[in-house]
């Protein structure tokens, strides 16, 4: 009983100390460190999301602090583990808003917890650069919601456009029966049909089976020229290796999931590197690893080994780049608004990103800060490319097609944001 009383007492003291030390949100005192929350899973099945986020936040903070900070404040990235589920994410969001009195914005939430926590963050006036792809946010009215990564359903348009460009007119859709993969299918079917193609096979794939012989026979009976896919690495490896044995491979176009290391390793090991290079292409948000913005990002990332384990793994990761851009955009918006209060600088986020006549295009925080101090209006074009938010604070951007050869991902072409917008109407 005494242990219980002591523990209860300690918990109450902890809460009381925190509560007394808190002065509420909104802005920061004269010299305090501004906090950017990394609001993503750092544990559980999606723990890699958090590491990916650190690969964007830390390099941005390093450059901003090296440039003197924002309005006299240094910045820091603070992890807030959502544990990848709504039930754990809700108290995490409330705790973060209660304890981080200098919280100026967050990176995240992810699809795991966005529908439960984005309304809370919006209610707390916390700008969020989300990484959720859920279509539920395509027309959100949340003022503090900003999405630089494409919605899940946009991927379907990109796949269809790329296949059409390659001359394919008959396809099979091999998507896992999980909700994430299935959310790509309606727009894929719609766009490919509109472009004159036919999805001859389209059935949700049961994941993790030991054999897909029956499914392969059904697919081959429809005579597809190309296979669209998003399945987990194990399923992809089993399915494609059996297809290779039974018939020979067909061209495969996958989503960004298929360009991630576990998928490439599993499938490449199953079908062989030569077949991988010849038959496989993947589509991911367009974030070419080149140009001055990317060079600044990559240099800072590679210098962040103390805080980011194996930083080079995020060098060409489009999500890490967009997190980096998100921090820079918030910092520049604060300078443009001359305030660190989220309620004040939030409207300036579009002002520092949207194109316009007479605006100075900047690639880095330092260039943007200098231009703003010189009295210019700016358009920030980051490591992930231009950011153009629509009415609902979504910035879709372009997609790139890439192949995997000799252990590296190589860009082979792209689908523009304008093409996606045209086919989605």
């Amino acid at each position, binding site marked *: *009983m005494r242990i*219980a009383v002591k*523990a*209860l007492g300690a*918990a109450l003291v902890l*809460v009381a100390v*925190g*509560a007394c030390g*808190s*002065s*509420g*949100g909104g802005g920061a005192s004269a010299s305090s460190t501004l906090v950017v929350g990394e609001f993503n899973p*750092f*544990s*559980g*099945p*999606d*723990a890699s999301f*958090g*590491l990916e986020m*650190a690969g964007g936040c830390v390099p941005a903070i390093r450059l901003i602090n090296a440039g003197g900070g924002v309005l006299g404040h240094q910045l820091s990235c*603070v*992890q*807030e*583990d959502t*544990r*990848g*589920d*709504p*039930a*754990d994410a*809700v*108290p995490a969001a*409330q*705790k973060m*808003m*209660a*304890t981080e009195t200098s919280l100026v914005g967050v990176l995240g939430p992810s*699809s*795991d*917890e966005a*529908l*439960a926590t984005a*309304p809370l963050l919006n*209610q*707390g006036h916390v700008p969020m650069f989300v990484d959720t792809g*859920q*279509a*539920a946010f395509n027309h959100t009215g949340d003022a503090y919601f900003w999405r630089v990564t494409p919605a899940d359903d946009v991927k379907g348009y990109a796949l269809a456009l790329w296949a059409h460009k390659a001359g394919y007119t008959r396809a099979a859709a091999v998507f896992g*029966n*999980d*909700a*994430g993969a*299935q*959310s790509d299918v*309606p727009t894929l079917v719609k766009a490919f049909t509109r472009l004159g193609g036919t999805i001859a096979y389209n059935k949700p794939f*049961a*994941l993790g089976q030991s054999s897909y012989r029956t499914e392969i026979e059904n697919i081959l009976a429809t005579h597809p020229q190309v296979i669209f896919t998003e399945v987990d690495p194990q399923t992809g490896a089993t399915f494609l290796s059996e297809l290779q044995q039974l018939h020979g491979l067909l061209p495969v176009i996958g989503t960004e999931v298929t360009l991630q290391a576990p998928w490439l390793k599993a499938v490449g090991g199953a079908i062989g590197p030569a077949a991988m290079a010849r038959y496989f292409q993947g589509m991911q948000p367009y974030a070419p690893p080149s140009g001055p913005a990317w060079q600044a990002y990559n240099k800072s990332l590679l210098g962040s080994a103390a805080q*980011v*384990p194996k930083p080079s793994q995020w060098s060409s990761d489009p999500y890490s780049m967009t997190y980096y851009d998100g921090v820079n955009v918030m910092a520049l918006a604060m300078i443009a608004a001359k305030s660190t209060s989220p309620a004040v600088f939030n409207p300036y986020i579009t002002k520092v990103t949207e194109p316009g006549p007479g605006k100075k295009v900047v690639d880095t925080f330092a260039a943007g800060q200098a231009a703003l101090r010189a009295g210019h209006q700016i358009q920030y074009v980051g490591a992930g490319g231009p950011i153009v938010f629509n009415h609902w604070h979504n910035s879709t951007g372009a997609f790139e097609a890439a192949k995997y050869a000799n252990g590296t991902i190589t860009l082979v072409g792209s689908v523009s944001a304008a093409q996606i917008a045209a086919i989605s109407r």
Partner: protein
Amino acid sequence: MSVAWQFYISTVLIYLGVDVIACWGLNLQFGVAGLVNFAYIIFQAAGAYTAAVLTLGPATRGGFQQYIGGAHLPFPVPILVAGVVGGLLAAVVGGLAIRRLRSDYEAMVMLVVSLIATSVATNQSGLVNGSNGLALVPKPLAAMVNLSPIGYQWLFVGITAVICLCVYWLVHIVTSSPLGRTLRAVRDNEQAAAALGKNVAALRMLAFVLGGVLAGISGAILVEFISAWSPGSWLYPETFVYFTAVIVGGSGNNLGVMVGALLVPVAFLEATRFVPQFGPPGLIDALQWIIVGVLALVFLWFWPRGVIPERRRRFPRPAEGEADGAPRRVPLFLRAGR
């Protein structure tokens, strides 16, 4: 106290209520009846999904979430139905698993049931919207009471407290009745209880179903509060957090279990959120699961009866006038069956 802190503290209090109810349900099964239910979390999930679906209304064709059986039922009907569904699911699982199996094998089957349930809910995307889960569940009474957001938070704290009191009344009369005594007898020596003519299988099943009902109610309260639920919220390790709470608090003791719910899922897991960052990203978050396991082991080794042990029941000698052992008046439903 700032509004942000009020939001956080009220959220923690609501979670405490949810965890206390869930732990009382597990205590009925494990602490009182000796059932090792490693699938406990699926009954909470069943309640959560039921309440969500019965609050959301029918799914719209082509909408971002697809599920079966949608309806608009007024508060508190979804919570009550969630309890019924939790109990029915427990009856089905119990009928398959606990009638013929005991201890180790029972625990193994339950663990497998938990894994199967998660897999089904994730892969059958038309059932409860697959891995994305259900979201945007309307808050109960929100449209009627017209309170500020923080005012509504405190109202929900009050609702949760009232439900907790009702549940405590239920578990107290069960555990302090002849039925509770018989369940403990089954737990302590099943063969002896059977030899005295008790229907062991029926008693175990009754405790299992009652625990399922409470788990369903706890899940329903949680989903009505957070407005979302997905397979990530009820992975099998979550069951072990509740087991640790019951063990730490004092298995078989309702008050102890309440303290365990305060100490483990609330105070302990919330406290780790306040630990300053050190090491590589995610280190603290990964360590907390290890520490939960260590906590359970330490208590099982050094304080197996928990911080508030189950009371040893000593029965006084019958008084002069009661020498014939005339029974107390006990409601029929609480009498132990044969």
